[in-house]
């Protein structure tokens, strides 16, 4: 069985407001999956359902084949999670923060140090969590999610509000987990993050998954114009249709040395998202 996270026909409403309206997902072991959608689309709600924090109105969800509504203590040990509304004990040191979770999961000092090392917080082991920078706090939360060495990680907007350098560090840690064969389910507002990290993404809009696939495939799918943009040595750009007729022109430009760069004009994810939903992704 290679399925890590599955969802079938998940629906969820809060009062009269339908947030999720028939969500199907099938996430394979070892992949980084990105859930994208504008603020309020229901990304966090879906994570909560998948991890058994709230119940769906209908449909089924499972992690490692275990029904999300009936997760046992051992099932929970097999996934790690960080959400933006998860806090840390500000007065306690980083080490002591992890020690609490270590106690619950029954793992020891070696695992705590290992988790701190993974996120580069060994030096700060004794620092009170309240004194950490924003990026370091995110890393501490990541370390907490790593504590039980879980197979699956749920990361709800792990880089939101971080500077590019801190975000980059988090990206490296996420990729390192993938290297170790872990499955990562992450949500993000940032298209570039999704393009860089994710094997597959889903665009969530108005309660439904409106697009699913590899980021570059999705972009190609929305390349309606199919054109080539050529940057010339004289500084000008020209666009030509991406078809047979282009070949002569291209070879001429290349032979004469006038073409500096050649690009296809498929839209980026941001543009695709705008086209599908008519909404901007990043608030």
């Amino acid at each position, binding site marked *: 069985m290679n399925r890590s996270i599955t969802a079938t026909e998940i629906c969820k409403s809060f009062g009269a407001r339908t947030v999720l309206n028939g969500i199907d997902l099938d996430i394979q072991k070892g992949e980084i999956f990105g859930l994208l959608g504008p603020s309020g689309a229901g990304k966090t709600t879906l994570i909560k359902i998948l*991890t058994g*924090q709230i119940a769906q109105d209908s449909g089924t969800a499972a992690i490692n084949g275990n029904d999300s509504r009936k997760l046992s*203590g051992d099932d*929970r040990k097999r996934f790690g*999670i960080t959400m933006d*509304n*998860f*806090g*840390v*004990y*500000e*007065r*306690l040191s980083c080490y*002591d923060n992890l020690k*609490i*979770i270590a*106690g*619950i*999961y*029954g793992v020891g000092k070696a695992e705590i140090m290992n988790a701190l090392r993974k996120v580069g917080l060994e030096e700060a082991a004794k620092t*009170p969590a309240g004194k950490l920078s924003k990026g370091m706090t995110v890393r501490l939360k990541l370390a*907490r999610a790593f504590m039980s060495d879980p197979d699956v990680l749920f990361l709800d907007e792990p880089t939101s509000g971080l500077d590019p350098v801190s975000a980059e560090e988090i990206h490296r840690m996420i990729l390192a987990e993938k290297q170790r064969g872990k499955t990562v389910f992450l949500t993000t507002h940032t298209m570039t993050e999704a393009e860089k990290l994710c094997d597959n993404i889903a665009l969530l809009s108005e309660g439904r998954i409106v697009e699913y696939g590899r980021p570059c495939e999705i972009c190609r799918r929305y390349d309606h114009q199919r054109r080539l943009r050529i940057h010339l040595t004289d500084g000008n750009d020209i666009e030509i249709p991406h078809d047979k007729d282009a070949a002569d022109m291209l070879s001429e430009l290349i032979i004469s040395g006038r073409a500096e760069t050649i690009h296809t004009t498929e839209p980026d994810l941001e543009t695709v998202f705008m086209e599908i939903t008519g909404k901007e992704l990043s608030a």
Partner: protein
Amino acid sequence: MKNIAVIFKKQIRDTLKNKMVLIQFLMFPLLVVIFENVVKIEDMPEHFFVKLFAVMFVGMAPLTCMSAIIAEEKEKNTLRVLLMSNVKPAEYLVGVGSYVFVMCSAGMAVFAVVGGYSGTELVRFIAAMSAGIILSELTGAVIGIFSRNQMTATSISVPVMMLFAFLPMLSMFNDTIKSVAQVTYSQQISELINGIGDSGIQAESLIVIAVNFVLAVILFTVAYKRKGLET
């Protein structure tokens, strides 16, 4: 059991760093040591301050600490992390409750030593104080469950704790207040402690404490059923 111990240890580690809670545990035990040694007034009943402050301690410390700890965990979003990691709400409450009980017992020991209790007197003192601590903890837990954050918790716990902690003192001076105070557990605990040297125990005290206990448990169950530990 393991999770209860984890919560308990976490609280122990936080004790010295959490000024707000630390003060609650230390204030009255320190005051009683100072007052009993420094203040000497003619005709003052023996160990007047032990009896006075012990009741205030029981009315205030467990109640404030319970509500403050629970409310802070909600406000700082740490409680949901524990629950997510499969700590059961009951385990959490028992963990925090036993921590507060142990800390208050340390304070109680100071009172017992300063009061010079021994033998049956000591047993009666411990029993009365323990009953008071448990009742105050239940009340504090109810407040913590109903509060979203520390601000709300404080604004509810301060008047409630004033009521329980100060009614017994005020009722020394005013009979009307005393007749009202009779129905509160703290007044009865005050009477038990003041009557510790007497041979018998007033049935009224035990009944009022029992009724208070039943009420607190009902209130707690209702609060817990309705709100759980959700924020």
